């Protein structure tokens, strides 16, 4: 194996190990480690010859790519995320809270629901814990969180009355049961599943043993 292949293999393992990091953090980490190896090789003297043994030592001293990625994840994680928990709660039940407040007579429930949900969405996007794909998922699956199925369920049920002759007039709306029940399950389950997923993704990796401790807040 040539030196270049050795380096490429090491960086590939680091790239794989750090795939859960946010993009800018990952990019900087890759850049720094690649720079370190380049510096070490430049300082190490002539290429060729016994280069591989020297290079192996450099990579050994850098350590296991998984440890480096874990250190970066730990450094990023810090203290448990109040922001993230609040964001998930607001996204999930914020819409319901807004509706409830509206029903109590404090203004338009729908506007409140949207405002609360939007606050959650802004926090979702502001957090460095989630990757872009998580943020898109959280925003798309959740227009209103649990408020949406609640709103649908609270619509007046279909009422039909038979008029004279063959005419039947109906008010309200209804879905056939075969469609309505699965739809209701999906509408309730999707926000819950995404909530659990987001909490899982926001959890600091390896929190019991953070590789880089939090500096005392000043």
């Amino acid at each position, binding site marked *: 194996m040539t030196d270049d292949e050795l380096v490429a293999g090491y960086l590939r393992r680091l790239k794989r190990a750090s795939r859960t990091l946010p993009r800018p953090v990952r990019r900087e980490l890759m850049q720094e480690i690649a720079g370190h190896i380049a510096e070490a090789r430049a300082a190490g003297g002539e290429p060729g010859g016994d280069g591989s043994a020297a290079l192996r030592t450099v990579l050994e001293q850098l350590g*296991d790519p998984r440890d480096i990625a874990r250190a970066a994840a730990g450094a990023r994680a810090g203290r448990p995320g109040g922001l993230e928990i609040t964001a998930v709660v607001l996204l999930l039940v914020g819409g319901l809270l807004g509706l409830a407040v509206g029903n109590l007579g404090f203004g338009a429930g729908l506007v409140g629901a949207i405002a609360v949900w939007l606050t959650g969405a802004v926090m979702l996007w502001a957090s460095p814990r989630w990757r872009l794909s998580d943020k898109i998922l959280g925003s798309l699956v959740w227009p209103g969180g649990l408020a949406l199925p609640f709103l649908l369920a609270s619509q007046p049920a279909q009422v039909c009355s038979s008029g004279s002759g063959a005419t039947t007039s109906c008010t309200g709306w209804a879905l056939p049961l075969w469609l309505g029940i699965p739809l209701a399950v999906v509408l309730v389950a999707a926000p819950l599943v995404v909530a659990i997923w987001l909490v899982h993704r926001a959890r600091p990796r390896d929190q019991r043993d953070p590789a880089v*401790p939090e500096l005392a807040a000043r």
Partner: protein
Amino acid sequence: MNQVAQMRRGVLPYCVLAMLRHTERYGFELVRALGSVDGMVTGEGTIYPLLARLRRQGLVVTSWQESASGPPRRYYRITAAGRAALGDFMQAWAQLRDSVDELLDAEEAP
């Protein structure tokens, strides 16, 4: 052993700040200097995430500078907040070290 590793990790950020007290340094230089201190660092690569964190916390700032011998280097410089954090730590460390030494010596005496 694990306790020692944790203590080491706890003081490592301040060792980095201390190394930047008088001069700015680039990543490779810092990492090599720390790595050459006995028992200070196990994997050199884990220092880079620490450096990134110190920057996010505003304790150091970075700048790219041309190098005579290769690609540009990212230099790290301590900030006023970094100096303040280091000052607090040095005080606390001296106190803790003396207190622990006193207790350990007292235990060792016949």
